[in-house]
């Protein structure tokens, strides 16, 4: 029923496209076996099933609550939903009848505290036991506290500057490569992200299933200038760099440094800061919009290389704001996606990652870490690279 619901186009669910292009129908064979009849092979299907949108929902609750199911969730985990006071808190309680290992915590209350300083103060005074996220600028300070612990872990989120490859001067691969050589990514990772980022050596983050290390463009302004000369770009060429504000860790600050890096190799860079909804609309307008270079983050929520690459680099697809189109990449992506053998699939995706790195439709920057702050005594909280925090093994020791 959970999958019939998401596959039904009349329900207009936002993750319909994660399953509908691939699943033809779902059959129940017996009490513990379900068969997915596929329209076409999908090597990363198990990753799609492990996505939050693939979670099983109680059929009784779907019948009872219908479209209000999101406010009254009933799933299959070790906690039960108790209440949701809009804008104030969500409370979960231990599910005593859970089929697996029972949760150690009796109750979990989650509250939004939007102001970063107030959130950290609430942790430091003991009003709350855990906060997320901890800004990179506060991690070292919190680590010095004897009452607190900061748990830092990598994510599979990559931050990059997207390049509209159909717009001059970016339609020349030498220019795109020059942009990569012009940016000091290590300085950005070390000084702006305070060391809580890894310089990109691939279009995807290392923890993404199917990641392949290609190479990083080292910081080489002279090489950048040489490539720009070869491409016929004159010093003083005006370009625009767009960035959101507060959407990603230190996004605006990163863009400001990149502005100065690109200025140093001869561009005149106009930096525009955007509010998120307007920014997203402009990017989705693609050809109709005037963007050229834009800061963006990407996190494949299935944690699979197919999702990280296919929607971004296949001709004409959703997240392909670069307007990148390469028949070789398209062919490789389709082959890789449908390949059931894991080894062959990896080899195909390795080729795609190398091709994308060479073609540079992005200024590849870094993958970022995430940090939670917890009171000493709180144990077993799990943080996942897809920016999820789970509490199935969490406990609070007094």
């Amino acid at each position, binding site marked *: 029923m959970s999958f019939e619901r998401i596959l039904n186009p009349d329900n207009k669910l936002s993750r319909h496209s994660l399953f509908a292009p691939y699943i033809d129908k779902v059959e129940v064979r017996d009490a513990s076996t379900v068969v997915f009849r596929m329209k076409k092979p999908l090597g990363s299907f198990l990753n799609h099933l492990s996505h939050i949108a693939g979670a099983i929902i109680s059929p009784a609750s779907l019948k009872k609550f219908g479209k209000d199911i999101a406010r009254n969730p009933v799933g299959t985990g070790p906690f039960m939903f108790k209440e949701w006071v809009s804008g*104030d808190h969500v409370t979960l309680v231990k599910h005593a009848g859970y089929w697996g290992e029972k949760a150690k915590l009796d109750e979990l209350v989650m509250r939004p505290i939007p102001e970063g300083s107030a959130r950290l103060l609430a942790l430091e005074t003991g009003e709350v036991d855990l906060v997320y996220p901890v800004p990179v600028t506060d991690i070292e300070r919190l680590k010095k506290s004897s009452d607190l612990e900061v748990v830092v872990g990598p994510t599979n989120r990559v931050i990059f500057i997207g390049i509209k490859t159909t717009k001059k001067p970016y339609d020349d691969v030498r220019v795109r490569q020059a942009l990569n050589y012009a940016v000091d990514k290590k300085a950005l990772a070390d000084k702006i992200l305070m060391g809580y980022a890894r310089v990109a050596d691939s279009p995807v983050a290392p923890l993404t299933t199917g990641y392949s290390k290609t190479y990083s463009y080292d910081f080489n302004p002279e090489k950048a200038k040489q490539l720009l000369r070869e491409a016929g770009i004159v010093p003083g060429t005006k370009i625009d760099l767009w960035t959101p504000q507060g959407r990603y860790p230190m996004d605006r600050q990163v863009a400001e440094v990149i502005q100065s890096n690109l200025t140093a190799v001869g561009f005149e860079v106009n930096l525009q800061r955007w509010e998120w*909804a307007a920014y997203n609309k402009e990017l989705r307008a693609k050809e109709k919009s005037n963007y050229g270079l834009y800061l963006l983050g990407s996190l494949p929520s299935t944690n699979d290389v197919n999702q990280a690459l296919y929607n971004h680099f296949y001709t004409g697809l959703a997240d392909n704001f670069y307007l990148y189109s390469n028949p070789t990449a398209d062919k490789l992506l389709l082959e890789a996606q449908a390949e059931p053998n894991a080894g062959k699939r990896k080899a195909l995706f390795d080729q795609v990652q190398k091709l994308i790195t060479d073609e540079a439709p992005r200024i590849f920057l870094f993958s970022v870490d995430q940090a939670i702050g917890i009171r000493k005594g709180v144990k077993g909280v799990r943080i996942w690279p897809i920016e999820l925090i789970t509490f199935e093994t969490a406990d609070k020791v007094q």
Partner: protein
Amino acid sequence: MVRYVLQRLLLVVPTLLGVSLVVFLMVHLIPGDPVTAIIGEGATEQDIAAMRSRLGLDAPLHLQYVRFFGNVVRGDFGKSLRTGRTVMDELRVRWPTTLRLTIYSVAAMILIGVPAGILSATRANSWLDNSSMLIALFGVSMPVFWLGLMLMMLFAYYLPLLPTAGSATWKHFVLPALTLGLSNSALIARLTRSSMLEVIGQDYIRTARAKGLAEKFVVYKHALRNALLPVITVVGLQFGALLGGAVLIETVFSVNGIGRYMVQSIGFRDYPVVQSSVLIFSLSFVLINLLIDLSYAVVDPRIRYR
């Protein structure tokens, strides 16, 4: 008086019509829409179109307005595009919190501002007057969110007397109310002072003193009452403005009030929430203004409405 009140209430209808049209146009003209605010990575054009259709955003703009206003007249303020709950349910959760914060803040504002103004006026040009006005200047000059964070550091961290964030108990309201009260009391203090000074210079005050009345009767019974009219106006306007939600303070202290909710809704382009909230806020502002005007007649018997 009754005719005056009815005339004012009738004016509410065209006022709200105008407000609804202006806010509808403004919020639809902002770049971005609810779909682009909410939709995540990997969303196809079909996903976006499906979401737009589900949210009723594919209808022509004028039809969307007619539908919205028609529903409002029937008491249906629509559903949040983000949560699917009715706007009234969302506001019902937050309204008591904002009302509580407003009342406490206005009380703090009056309790700090009016005595400071009286003290300054009765000891004009003394060190008390100068100190009081300097503190008032400091209060009005400081960014309110900075003041809030500083008070939080002092009373929640260094002297752990009060909580940092939330709105569960009365203690959670002390710091936000004190912040807003301090910040807004500056205006009240200065206004009270200047209004009192003007009244104290009047002949009838000299007469009252000449009659031998004790100074406290002169100040509180005669001078203050006559000096209060402009102060009531400003307090009333501040009350009305705070009812719309003090968004910075609600964000700093995580108070689940209307102000923060409205700003979040603008960010999400949650059209029904923004449109309906502004309408409700406008209505309450108009009614508060009416109450302020009517209160003049109580404070000053010379004022009568026909």
